[in-house]
């Protein structure tokens, strides 16, 4: 008897991961901004995380009071007796 294939719908997580990977591959294929046009991008105000010490303090505040910690290039839990 021939086995019927069941088609599973990809989860939201799988879709987001695929979108991230495709975006990275497409975006990395060509040089978009030449070196001599990056004056604004080099400004400290364009730092994605801002002040590192302040960001670390905020991260500690959020991860110790919310269950959704970790994943932003920083481990979840660990230290502080936090879950």
């Amino acid at each position, binding site marked *: 008897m021939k086995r019927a294939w069941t088609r599973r719908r990809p989860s939201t997580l799988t879709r987001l991961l695929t979108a991230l990977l495709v975006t990275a591959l497409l975006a990395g294929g060509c040089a978009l901004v030449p070196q001599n046009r990056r004056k604004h991008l080099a400004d400290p105000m364009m730092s994605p995380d801002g002040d590192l010490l*302040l960001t670390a303090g905020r991260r500690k505040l959020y991860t110790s009071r919310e269950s959704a910690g970790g994943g932003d290039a920083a481990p979840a839990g660990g230290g502080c007796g936090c*879950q």
Partner: protein
Amino acid sequence: MRLSVVAAAAVLGFVGPPAARGAPMIAAPAPPPPIDEPVIVHAPAYQIQLIALRFTYFDQDGLGYQSAAGPALGPGSERTTVAEPQNEVVATIGDRLTERIVTSVDVVTAASPNHKLYGLPVGTPVDTISSPSRINEAEQIDSDTTYAWSRTINVGLHADYHLEEPLESWGLGMFATRAFADDNTVLAASLFQIVDWFDDFNLDGKRYGRDVRTTTNINLGVTQLLTPTTIVLGSYGFTTQGGTLTNTWNSVPLADGTRGTEIVPRRRDRHAISGRLVEWLPWQGSLRLGYRFYADSWGSVAHTVDANLSQRVGRLTLDLGARYHRQSAVDFFGTVFDPAGTGFRTADSDLAAFTAHAVSAGARWDQPIGHRGHQIYFALTGERYVRSNDLYVDFVSGALGWQQ
């Protein structure tokens, strides 16, 4: 040509020490002994790039069902304050090596039992009467070393150590970045491993020895320059934890009017995907927008959005920020449980369903000094964080720094 002639003469015996031959013959002058050229090796230049000092004060108040500081069947107090001085030093060693060291100290009120029971017999009641158990100090040091492998590849190592009264924690990690397309695209990957070692107390304050928790975290990220004024970032992080994942003294209300121990699984897997856009604004400003999706194996799903607006006015930079967070409860959350139940249970308000709002405002003053591009800066930031399940935190943070 000359060398080959001399060699041939030596082989044939025409050239040699005169004493060996008894008579001066051709008598070519002996070459001077070789003298090694002195090689002067300079140590790589050690240069401090940044020194920053920051002091932050957190003031938290609210109620949570995991706290026993209240009625048996109702939420207890989560009142606490934290004073946190921090220090950051960034230095370069030569052209390729960059070292970043951060130290921080947390002085926490109403934090946790007293660690001075270490070494005493198991079952010794915790000191809940005198002041040491009402004030807790935690110290942490973080070190990041980055090596520029080539113009496009950076690799690095991370190490940290955390010490507080009932807990010690060790962390190790490695990270790497690779730039493509004339630095328009940067891919990043990192791996961290943390081991926590802490005291196991029951609800009455008796100590049952030591527990262990391990955390493994891997991250992948990409940064892309989209236009001369736009940067986008995306990242995925996976974290798996094992061991004792409760702090051991959280309690749950029981239907018979008493309190029981929190029981949670010994494994937890977390996934987080985040995206961020940074846009330069033509009036000397910038806008940061971020979104983060989170899901874990305990059943909690969360969405977080944040926005930050910066505006420069001369040497002054002003910041306004807002953040919204919404999460669902873990599968085994509740506010009252069956006393005979043995399944997973928690009443921890951090694991409940709630929304949280935060607004912040800050200012920074940059003051150039000297003629070498050095500057000092002063910064002040305030934030109010409010959770829908009865918790708020105010914090004020001030910083003083020097950089070049």
